[in-house]
């Protein structure tokens, strides 16, 4: 420690922090941080927390047998989606156990929402699942409408369904690219972004924002469609299938891709149900559950579509499931554009909403599965309790089941095939 300058008496904050940390560690009975460890001492021990294990599971993961070591995948790693940390226990290159560590992106959105008025909640939920922003707004909007006891006009419902299906196309398209990227394919992700960029431009034409659209309102949507949106939609509809096909040619039949995904990360239907996995991941395991069909919301009971399923439940099936759903969504968009009625897009709602005390639940089918919102009102302008079920979080539960026995290289490929979004996982 250097001597402080008597003139200024401003100690180095880093030094102060170090002193403070040493004091706290001493108070908590932890070993002090060594400034230099002996060379190569305990190379395989690096990554084990320096505190006793808190749970049985933790003891299981962090106790190593002969020949095993821990590898940290993330939170800063070239291919973790967002900031996720996987503690991987490996024997050579074979994964023995895996422990997903979450919370690096936790922003306390639920608590923020409980302090916001019902109108502004819809802006807070945007950055949760940042690849499906419209879906994030859809469920709270429905829940608040149930609480307040209004229904949005028909045209608003159609516009909602339209933008939501567009978002699904862009999200599933990106999943194709990310899956290839995590296996070392550089190109499909960029082709996928061409498609996504057009959709985002289109949605920013209708909503006035990129990415975080803030388009849904309690009792309707912010804007009606305009010429700019419709002309972009028409152009996009003209070549979207060609674009998706271009990406499919890169991936679907590629022998290397097939060798790395078929029979890889197989999730059986029963396992998927018991883990609570929903959405494309569940349907790829052969379970025909789609919220749009099982519990129709918005206008989905007026549209014709089938629940697509795959049988094998492996990474390749999850990939094929996404492709099939992209085509289905485009089909839905065609129907919506055909049937869209005229009329207003926003019901009469006051600026500050004060619903009667009560509770409401709304579930929608987001690109990652069943996304639902449970909201309790105590009669005030803010939700008393606001709870979101995010499908990515549930999907991650399947990982310790899928990965053991695979190679380190497969962890990322399997994770990409589950398509989690960390913004939604950590909330």
């Amino acid at each position, binding site marked *: 420690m250097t001597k402080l300058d008597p003139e200024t008496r401003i100690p180095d904050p880093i030094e102060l922090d170090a002193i403070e940390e040493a004091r706290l560690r001493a108070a908590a009975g932890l070993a002090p941080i060594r400034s*230099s*460890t002996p*060379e*190569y001492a305990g*190379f395989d021990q*690096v990554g084990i927390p320096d505190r006793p294990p808190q749970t049985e599971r933790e003891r299981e993961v962090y106790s190593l047998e002969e020949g095993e*070591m821990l*590898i940290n995948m993330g939170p800063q*790693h*070239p*291919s973790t989606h967002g900031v996720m940390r996987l503690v991987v226990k490996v024997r050579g*290159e074979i994964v023995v156990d895996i422990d997903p560590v979450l919370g690096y992106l936790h922003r306390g959105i639920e608590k923020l929402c409980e302090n916001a008025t019902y109108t502004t909640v819809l802006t807070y939920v945007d950055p949760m699942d940042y690849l499906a922003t419209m879906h994030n707004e859809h469920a709270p909007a429905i829940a608040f409408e149930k609480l307040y006891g209004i229904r949005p006009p028909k045209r608003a419902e159609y516009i909602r369904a339209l933008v939501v299906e567009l978002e699904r196309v862009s999200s599933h398209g990106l999943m194709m690219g990310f899956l*290839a*990227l*995590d*296996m*070392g*394919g*550089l*190109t499909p992700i*960029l*082709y996928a972004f*061409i498609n996504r960029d057009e959709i985002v431009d289109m949605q920013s034409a209708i909503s006035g924002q990129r990415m975080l659209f803030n388009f849904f309102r309690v009792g309707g949507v912010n804007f009606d469609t305009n010429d700019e949106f419709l002309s972009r939609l028409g152009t996009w509809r003209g070549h979207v299938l060609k674009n998706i096909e271009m990406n499919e040619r*890169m991936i679907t039949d*590629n022998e*290397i*891709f097939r*060798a*790395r995904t078929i029979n890889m990360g197989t999730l059986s239907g029963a396992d998927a149900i018991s883990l609570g996995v929903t959405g494309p991941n569940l349907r790829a395991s052969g379970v025909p559950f789609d919220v749009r069909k099982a519990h129709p919301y918005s206008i989905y009971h007026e549209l014709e579509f089938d629940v697509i399923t795959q049988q094998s439940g492996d990474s390749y099936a999850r990939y094929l499931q996404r492709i099939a759903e992209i085509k289905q969504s485009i089909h839905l968009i065609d129907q919506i554009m055909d049937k869209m009625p005229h009329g207003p897009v926003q019901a009469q709602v006051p600026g500050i909403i004060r619903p009667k005390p009560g509770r409401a639940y709304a579930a929608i089918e987001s690109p990652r599965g069943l996304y639902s919102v449970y909201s309790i009102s105590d009669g005030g302008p803010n939700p008393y309790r606001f709870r979101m079920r995010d499908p990515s979080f549930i999907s991650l539960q399947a990982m310790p089941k899928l990965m053991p026995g695979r*190679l*380190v*290289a*497969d*962890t*990322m490929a399997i994770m990409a095939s589950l398509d989690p979004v960390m913004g939604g996982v950590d909330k």
Partner: protein
Amino acid sequence: MDFELLLGLGRFVLATTLLLLLTVPTAFVVIQMEMKIIAQMNLRFGPNRIGPKGIFQSTIHGFKVLAKEDTVPDQADRSTFTLAPWMVFMAAAMSMLVIPFAPGAIAADFNIGIVYFFAVLGLSVVGLLVAGWASYNKYSLLGGLRSAAQMVSYEIPLTLSIVGAVVLAGTLSFSELIAWQLDHGWLLMWQPIGLGIFYVSSLAEVNRTPFDMVEADSELVAGPFTEYSGMRFGFFFFAEYVALFIMSAILVSLFFGGWLAPWPFPAQLGGFAGTLYGIFWFFLKTYIFVFIAVWLRATLPRVRVDQLMGMAWKVLLPLALVNLFITAIAVVVFDL
């Protein structure tokens, strides 16, 4: 002292210096090709700001790497950590000695040039292994071990695949092999299976997609290079791209007639003009294969490490042995 010996020594020093200097622009050109071609295939423009059409981008990258801070991890094995980039780079640079650029333009025309080449290029695995171990990093360690396993495995089919060609031509010298190809047509026609095995194995040997196990950025961050920065990383980077160039050059010399034009070599061209003519064809063919390697990288995902090893031992090695067997029988039966 013997004047002839002095002349030979001087020529050798000049040639090695020239080749060492050649590695730098070669790496720049290959890196630039990689950036630009992959970008174009991705429907991007790629580098287009520095210099006309962005041609100086890789040069600027090179200088940037020079200017960066050179860090050594706290618990790294400092001496070997420092040495590893040199081992990898020198393995690549030394194997350039036997590349036959043109008639008369070959630094050292050994009679065992092919053996020398494989012996020296294989040394780079030592450097990667050392880098992986010395870094005190688990990613580096896994990457280093992967590289050792991969390169040792692929040395075998790689070497066996050209034994057929050697048996046919009856020589281990690159210039004599090319002279044989001048008389009998390119070895491409004689050894198609050998060519296929050689190409696949050479991609694995220089860690190119789809066999870039060593780096595998989506799994191992940057493999053995993870902890390197500054010019040490630059050496690895250079060595990698120079090795790609060298492998393409050797492929061209072995199977595509080296400096020979696709049509008969004009007899009246001798001396310096002949050398230039040869260099032109040699570089043209070599860069076509560099292009193909980059093209593969733009298209393919990476194979998994067990699939990679399985392919070496279960597919390529038996194929190479069969190829050698057929060639040997043919040589005996048809008295080639």
